[in-house]
């Protein structure tokens, strides 16, 4: 029990201090870590929706893209500063999620795939509504992250801190929500929705709230990506990758835990880019698919619970060993 409080604190300190100290000078590794955290942010938002409310989405790219576009256009066309625009990007994604809310009435697979349909629709709209979005040509030279108190946040380390903070704040909010009564009700809805309804839980309203929250976080991450890559076009903003990778990451890490999606994203993305890619430069996504399949078949709860179980098991064995020795 004690370890539960200390471990996250140690991890957070390591992420803020040790990682930049150890790797800050290796730009490309930092780039990969930033990209992994970006996936991690979406994965947290995706898993939150699955864990609290039992909704599986196959179209989080929709919210990512809306967040990216709103933020990019506000900074470019309305002269907004970057950070408020990023929040507005999140808000935009949350508003976009309201459009998708009729889908909440649908059961599992139907909901999952109707969100995918929304992602397609948003992509086509981003292409067609040229006067607003600048069409298929996309947007070049999106403003970079600002310099705050002399610290250039658009630098590699700067953007690392920004995305890390976004992801950790999302996780902290998620952890807080899960402990709340509303969170408990949402947690229970996953398997026993009728039973929660008959004790007075307005399940559709809570699900809608979760969807909006998940969309908001995804939108902020999308906005971050726009200001970090400084480029946007409909295909990129609404790319299926923003859906696929977070799902793989969350499933791999364990989507019913709070740290699982982030751990999954870091492991999957970094191992994929640094290891798999080097011996299978072309179809290395095949390994991601295989991992997803293996995880569902062998350990549907994911890596983090698996590791936890193993640690507990080892600990018990060790303790028992001590007793035996004594």
């Amino acid at each position, binding site marked *: 029990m004690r370890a539960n409080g200390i471990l996250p604190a140690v991890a957070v300190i390591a992420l803020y201090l040790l990682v930049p100290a150890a790797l800050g000078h290796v730009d490309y590794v930092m780039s990969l870590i930033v990209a992994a955290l970006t996936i991690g942010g979406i994965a947290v938002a995706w898993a939150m929706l699955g864990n609290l409310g039992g909704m599986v989405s196959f179209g989080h790219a929709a919210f990512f893209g809306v967040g990216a576009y709103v933020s990019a256009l506000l900074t470019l066309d309305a002269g907004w500063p970057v950070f408020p625009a990023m929040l507005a990007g999140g808000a935009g994604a949350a508003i976009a999620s309201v459009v998708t809310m009729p889908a909440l009435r649908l059961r599992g697979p139907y909901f999952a795939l109707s969100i995918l349909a929304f992602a397609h629709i948003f992509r086509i709209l981003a292409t067609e509504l040229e006067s607003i979005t600048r069409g298929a040509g996309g947007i070049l030279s999106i403003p970079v992250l600002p310099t705050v108190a002399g610290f250039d946040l658009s630098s590699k380390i700067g953007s690392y801190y920004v995305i890390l903070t976004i992801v950790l704040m999302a996780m902290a909010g998620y952890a807080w929500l899960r402990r709340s009564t509303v969170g*408990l009700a949402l*947690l229970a809805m996953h398997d026993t929705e*009728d039973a929660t*309804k*008959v*004790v*007075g*839980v307005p399940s559709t309203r809570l699900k809608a709230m979760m969807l909006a929250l998940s969309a908001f976080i995804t939108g902020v991450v999308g906005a971050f990506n726009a200001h970090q890559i400084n480029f946007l076009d409909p295909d990129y903003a609404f790319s299926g990758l923003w859906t696929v990778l977070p799902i793989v990451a969350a499933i791999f890490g364990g989507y019913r835990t709070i740290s699982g999606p982030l751990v999954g994203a870091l492991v999957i993305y970094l191992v994929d880019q640094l290891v798999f890619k080097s011996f299978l430069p072309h179809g290395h996504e095949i390994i991601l698919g295989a991992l997803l399949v293996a995880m569902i078949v062998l350990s549907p709860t994911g890596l983090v619970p698996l590791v936890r179980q193993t640690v507990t098991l080892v600990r018990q064995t060790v303790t028992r060993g001590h007793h035996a020795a004594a």
Partner: protein
Amino acid sequence: MLQLEDISVAFGGLAALSNVNLRVDNGEFVGLVGPNGAGKTTVFNVISGLVKPTAGNARFIAMDLLKQPIHARARAGIARTFQIPQPLHELTVRQNLIVAQKFGTGHSDPKRIDEILDFLGLTERAERNAANDLALTEHKALEVGKALATDPKLLLLDEALAGLETTGKRQFTQMIKQLHEETGLAIVIIEHDIETISELCQRAVVLDFGKVIADETPERIFRDPEVMRSYTGERSA
């Protein structure tokens, strides 16, 4: 307080309930009996909102019941248990009650939860996982606990006693009786056992093939040979 008028339910063309009328007054204890498949649980599902009737009206206190979503009915004071216990997954016993109380009443009252736990003999089990770590009797008790935590005016018990062995059943019956006497709560119970019905209820309603075929005191009902034929005929099959 509750009034069902000409309620009909059909599943894919098959009539599950036809023109059911049911009245429950304040503080009443009503038994709902009938053979398996007669539509008893469907009546509960209509009242709690899990099933939409194809025709008919329903009022609860001053409210047009059928227009209300499920959670609003719970909020208005209708609570139910499930025949197969449905503890809220992933939560502890206490958390089950916390959620029910918060959403059923709109406020939190930890003392009241301790009382309910105590009343149902679940205090020792409060921190256990509700879905995985309870015995059947405890699951049944938790079903009632969740319902009580919403501070109901009307309690619907769906075979709350089924599956319990004799001692457990006796204890449970006494507990429900005590509950009714102490709180004056209106209760409807679905139950097969004639003795239990006679002991608990002031009135019994008999359903057969989705129709109400009798609505009287238990003594008179169980003396009616026609009712008993349909009743026991099904049970021995």
